[in-house]
C-alpha cells in the first residue's frame, strides 16, 4: 500500500521558468530578480524587454499626473466569434480578469516633464496588444480630447496587429485611427509615436508609423509581415537583425533609438523644442 502512495508525493521543485529569465534576443539566462531589477533590459545584449502599460506609465508620466480616460470603452463581440479553442468572449474576459485592463491600450491625460499630453500605452499582455474596436475607439476619442484641450499625443505601441476575433471592424480601426491622427496633426498638435517591442502588422501599418516623430528602444521588433511568412515567400533565411529597431533606423523609418532610461527626458525635450 505505502510503496506506491509514496511515489505520488514527489518533492515540489519549482519549475525553471519561475526562477530564471531568458533574454528572447541573446538567450542569456539570469535570475528573474535581476531581469526585473534591470527594468526588463538584458544586461548582456541591451535588448529592451516588454513592460506592462502601468509600468510604462509610471516611468514616463510625471508622478501622480496620469488621469485615466475611456476605461468603459472595451471589446465588442459583434461576430460572436469562436474558434477551435473556444469563444472570443471567454478568452477576452479571462484576459480582463488577469491583466485588470479592459482594452489593449490604456489612455489618459498626463504631463511629461511638465508638458500636457494625451498618453496612450499598449499592453502586449492584453490579447497580444491586438487592435480591436475598443482600442481604435479609445485612440479616436483621445485625438478628439487632445484637440479640444490642446495636448500633444504620445502613444507607446506594443502589438501583434489587428484582432482577428473582431473581424473586418478590427481592420477598419487602422483607417479610423489613421484618420483621427491625421486630423490631430493637421490641427498643429504633435504626435510622438514610440514603437516598443513588438510592433507589427496592422498597428505598425497605421497609427504607430504616423508619428511626427517615430522613436523606439534598442532591439525592438518592428515590421509589417511576420518573419516566417516572409521567409516562406522569398524562400530565403532572413538576417538576425531583420525588422529590428536598428534595421528600421538604418532604412529611414525611425527618427531615433532611445534607451529606456532616457525616453521621458527625450520626449519632454522634443515637446520643449516645439513649444508644446
Amino acid at each position: 500500500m505505502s510503496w506506491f502512495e509514496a511515489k505520488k508525493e514527489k518533492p515540489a521543485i519549482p519549475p525553471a521558468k519561475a526562477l530564471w529569465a531568458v533574454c528572447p534576443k541573446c538567450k542569456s539566462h539570469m535570475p528573474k530578480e535581476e531581469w526585473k531589477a534591470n527594468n526588463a533590459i538584458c544586461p548582456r545584449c541591451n535588448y529592451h524587454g516588454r513592460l506592462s502599460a502601468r509600468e510604462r506609465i509610471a516611468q514616463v508620466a510625471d508622478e501622480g499626473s496620469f488621469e485615466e480616460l475611456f476605461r468603459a470603452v472595451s471589446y465588442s463581440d459583434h461576430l460572436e466569434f469562436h474558434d477551435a479553442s473556444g469563444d472570443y468572449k471567454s478568452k477576452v474576459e479571462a484576459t480582463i480578469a488577469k491583466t485588470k485592463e479592459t482594452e489593449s491600450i490604456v489612455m489618459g491625460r498626463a504631463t511629461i516633464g511638465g508638458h500636457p499630453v494625451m498618453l496612450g500605452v499598449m499592453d502586449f499582455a492584453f490579447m497580444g496588444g491586438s487592435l480591436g474596436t475598443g482600442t481604435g475607439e479609445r485612440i479616436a476619442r483621445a485625438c478628439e480630447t487632445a484637440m479640444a484641450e490642446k495636448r500633444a499625443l504620445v502613444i507607446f505601441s506594443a502589438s501583434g496587429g489587428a484582432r482577428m476575433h473582431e473581424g473586418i471592424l478590427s481592420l477598419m480601426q487602422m483607417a479610423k485611427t489613421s484618420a483621427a491622427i491625421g486630423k490631430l496633426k493637421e490641427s498643429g498638435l504633435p504626435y510622438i509615436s514610440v514603437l516598443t517591442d513588438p510592433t507589427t502588422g496592422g498597428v505598425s501599418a497605421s497609427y504607430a508609423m504616423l508619428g511626427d516623430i517615430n522613436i523606439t528602444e534598442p532591439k525592438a521588433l518592428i515590421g509589417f509581415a511576420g518573419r516566417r511568412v516572409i521567409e516562406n515567400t522569398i524562400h530565403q533565411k532572413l538576417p538576425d537583425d531583420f525588422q529590428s529597431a536598428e534595421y528600421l533606423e538604418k532604412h529611414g523609418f525611425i527618427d531615433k533609438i532611445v534607451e529606456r532610461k532616457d525616453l521621458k527626458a527625450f520626449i519632454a525635450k522634443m515637446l520643449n523644442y516645439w513649444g508644446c
Partner: protein
Amino acid sequence: MASKKTVAKTAKTPKTPKAKAPTAWDRVQLARDAKRPHLADFLREMASDFEELHGDRLVNDDRALIGGFATIGGEKVLVLGHHKGATVEENMEANFGMVNPDGYRKAMRLGRLAEKFHLPIVTFVDTPGAYPGDTAEARGQAEAIAKSLEVFAGLKTPIVVVVTGEGGSGGALAIAVGDRILMLENAVYSVISPEGCAGILWRDGKAAPLAAEALKITAADLARLGVIDEIVPEPRGGAQTDHQAAAAYVKAAVLKALKELKKRSLDELMAARYEKLMKMGRFN
C-alpha cells in the same frame, strides 16, 4: 435535339444544387477565380478612355497597383486599382496583385494629383494582401500603408471604392478609404485570409472554410456591419461568367455614387467621410 437538351440539363444539376446560397468559402473561391473580371476587364468595359501614369517618383513603378485618368460614362476620374493579371506572365509582372510600398506611394501621388484638379477617384480593390517580402519591409511597407490611410482619409475630392474580388487586409484597405464603399456580391473582404486565420486560431490551415464563416467576410456580412454601403449584383453564376454584364452593374453603381457625392460641398464631403470612419466599431 430534345434528348441532347435533357442530357445537358441533367449533367448540370449536381453542379448547382438549386437555390442553395453559396457559403462564405464558396465565395472565397469565386472571388479568387482566375476568370473573374480584373482591373483591365473593368476598364475595357466601363471606360471610354484610360491613360495610365507610372511610378512613385522615388524608386519604382509597381505593376501590382495601376493608376491613371479615365472617362467613365462621361465622368473624368482617376482610377486606382490592384492588378492581378490574367495570364501567368501577367501574374508574374503584377506580383499576383501583391503591392509593394512603391505601389501605395504611387497611389498617394496620383491621389493628390486628382485632388489638385478636383477629379473624383474610383478605386478597384482585388488583392490577396500587401506583398510580404524582405524588400517590401526594407522600403517601409508598414509606413506606406499607414500613410495611405492618412492621406486618402484627407484627400479633398470624392472617392468611390469598389471591392471587386479579394479584399486582402491592410493591402486592400490602403486604397479602400472613401466616401462610398461598393462591393460585388461574391467579393470577400477580411482582416486576414481564411487560411491565415485557420493556421493561427485552429492550428490547421484546412480549417479555412470554418475561419471564412467565423470571420464574416461576405458582402452581406459587411453591409450588415456597416463597413460597405452597397452590394453590386453579379450575373447569375458569378462575374466570371459574363464580364460585360458584371462591368455594367459596376458602372451603374459607380456613376450613381459619383452623382450623389458631387452634390455635396467639399466641407460636407470631408465631414461625412470622417464621421463614416469614426462610426466603424463604435459600440460603447
